[in-house]
């Protein structure tokens, strides 16, 4: 394949040593000024006193974090105990997003693989085939998905007519529907990065594995997956993190019966509650969790760079 050069996952190189500041500058300027600054402001907000119905009062307060972690009863007069409400919401969201990521990986990897192994001309066609649906707005996609799977929708009607099922499947407002929605929302975020990594995979490695008595699936597990790992990890991050904050799929397909992180935080800014410091605090906690996960990933990546 690629004229001989050993391809290493996570090898670090120094070609542009010293150019890092210049190369990073646009990112720093854009994200630093237009996002980091606002986020720092939010971080500050999380330590301020809430103003009723939105906004903040410039007075230091730990009330938001207190509210997140400690339960003082409905009327605030019981001795503090651990507040499980928000932790529960976070945990459920993480679980939900994790499952969605897993499903996307399970379906997305074969798809990306299949596309990357087409001949070069048709690859981009397949790639576009996967992304074309995303020219239609997420909301419309989700609503049409809802239309499709509802008890009186085409899917159930078809299955009923064919006689596969005796009564509607009852998919709508279930966790399955939420998963389907998340899958539908974020699939390309898994497929594209994996595609980009697989496209470079050196099939001589598969040959070597096959030569050493490894069947196709063993080769997949022991050689291919580890070698294209950077793409898989990128895909997982791109599906997991947005799924955490997703609210359209849970709302429209799952019936909005429980808060997800996204809707909980949104409620603090756009809902009745209007508790900005609490929304900010919840966001900072979420940010910290995701940041930790990401830094563990970055750390692992650095470990593989020996030079």
């Amino acid at each position, binding site marked *: 394949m690629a004229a*001989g050069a*050993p*391809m*290493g*996952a996570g*090898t670090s190189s120094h070609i542009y040593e010293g150019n890092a500041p210049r190369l990073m500058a646009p990112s720093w300027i854009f994200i630093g000024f237009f996002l980091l600054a606002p986020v720092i402001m939010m971080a500050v907000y999380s330590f301020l006193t809430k103003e009723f119905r939105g906004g903040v009062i410039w007075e230091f307060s730990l009330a938001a974090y207190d509210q997140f972690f400690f339960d003082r009863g409905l009327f605030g007069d019981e001795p503090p105990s651990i507040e499980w409400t928000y932790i529960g919401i976070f945990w459920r969201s993480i679980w939900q997003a994790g499952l969605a990521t897993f499903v996307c990986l399970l379906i997305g990897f074969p798809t990306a693989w299949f596309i990357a192994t087409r001949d070069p001309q048709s690859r981009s066609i397949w790639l576009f085939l996967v992304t074309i649906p995303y020219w239609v707005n997420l909301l419309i996609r989700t609503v049409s998905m809802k239309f499709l799977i509802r008890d009186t929708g085409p899917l159930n009607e078809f299955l009923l007519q064919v006689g596969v099922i005796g009564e509607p499947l009852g998919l709508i407002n279930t966790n399955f529907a939420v998963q389907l929605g998340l899958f539908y929302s974020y699939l390309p975020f898994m497929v594209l990065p994996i595609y980009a990594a697989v496209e470079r995979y*050196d099939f*001589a*490695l598969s*040959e*070597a*594995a*096959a*030569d*050493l*008595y*490894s*069947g*196709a699936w*063993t080769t997949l597990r*022991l*050689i291919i997956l*580890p*070698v294209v*790992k950077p793409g898989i990890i990128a895909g997982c991050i791109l599906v997991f993190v947005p799924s955490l904050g997703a609210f359209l799929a849970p709302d429209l397909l799952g019936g909005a019966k429980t808060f997800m992180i996204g809707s909980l935080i949104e409620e603090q800014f756009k809902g009745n509650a209007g508790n900005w410091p609490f929304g900010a605090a919840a966001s900072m906690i979420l940010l910290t969790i995701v940041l930790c996960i990401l830094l563990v990933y970055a750390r692992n990546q650095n470990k593989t760079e*020996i030079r």
Partner: protein
Amino acid sequence: MASQDIAVSVDQVVKHYGNFTALHGVSLDIRESEFFTLLGPSGCGKTTLLRAIAGFESVSEGHILLKGEDLTGLPPHQRPVNTVFQQYALFPHMTVLENVMFGLLRKGWSKVEAVRRGQDVLDLVQLAEFAKRKPTQLSGGQQQRVALARALAPRPEVLLLDEPLSALDLKLRQSVRSELKALQRETGIAFIFVTHDQEEALTMSDRIAVMSNGRVQQIGSPKEIYEAPVNRFVADFVGETNLLDVEIASIDGGTASVVLPGGTPFTCPAATVLDPGRGHLSARPERIRITAPGDAHLDAVVTGHTYLGTDIQLQVRLSDGEVMSVRLQNSETTSVPEVGQTIGLQLEEGAARLLAD
């Protein structure tokens, strides 16, 4: 030859890459326990043939049999053959030891045994201390040795080696060569060895197939190939030779009478049935003696020396302008003629051969 004696049989194999034909109907029988070498210039189809045997390349026509069974359609991981890849193809995410253990674990060895065997094989290729490194942290030759160790470890029935020694230095090459030979004798498995290095081919092989442009030119023992090449290509490719343009006076069976450039008549063996007319006489540089000019087969002027360590190579020019080389063993007793000196060249009887083009 009964088919039990044949380890691998390549039967009329043709391979096309688009319009380009890499193999034009190659037929070979590799015997059991044989060290068989494919020798040929770059691009002649050696790797292609090896990949077809390993199962990585489908053949366009023809068959490949392993111990009498047609391999067509059998996937590579079910073929009891291992390959040392020309481009190594080491697994970049695994350590050297993990690379070597890979095939063993796939064959169901226990981890402990696989580690032991892996370390043994790494010892063999002198890489024991590198067991924990990743392939990218090795030099080119070290990588090649890992590839060799990886293929040797599972003790395959047939081992395919695609230039496994090309990046090794002479000393290491010699020791790996003898290890390979020993291993081959000990295990009695057939080795199919690809090389472009004729010395390697001559020293190691039981038999050699010389290939050119996707065709087999000659199959034979090293001595046959070197001393009785069937055509000009083989004579020229295997070792160095001087090809003299001569006039064929007569041919009788395997013997020809020719007239050398200077006009001297000369009798020599002829490769195949040739028509009288002009032909090429192959004379190996080491089979030419230096004598006084005048009464020798040929007269020549010395134009240059090359120092080869073991030998000294003389470049000489004949009176008609043809250039030849003569090889003298490098020793105190050898008197090396000066550049510019005129010398006589005496061809050894029977060592010069008349060849087909």
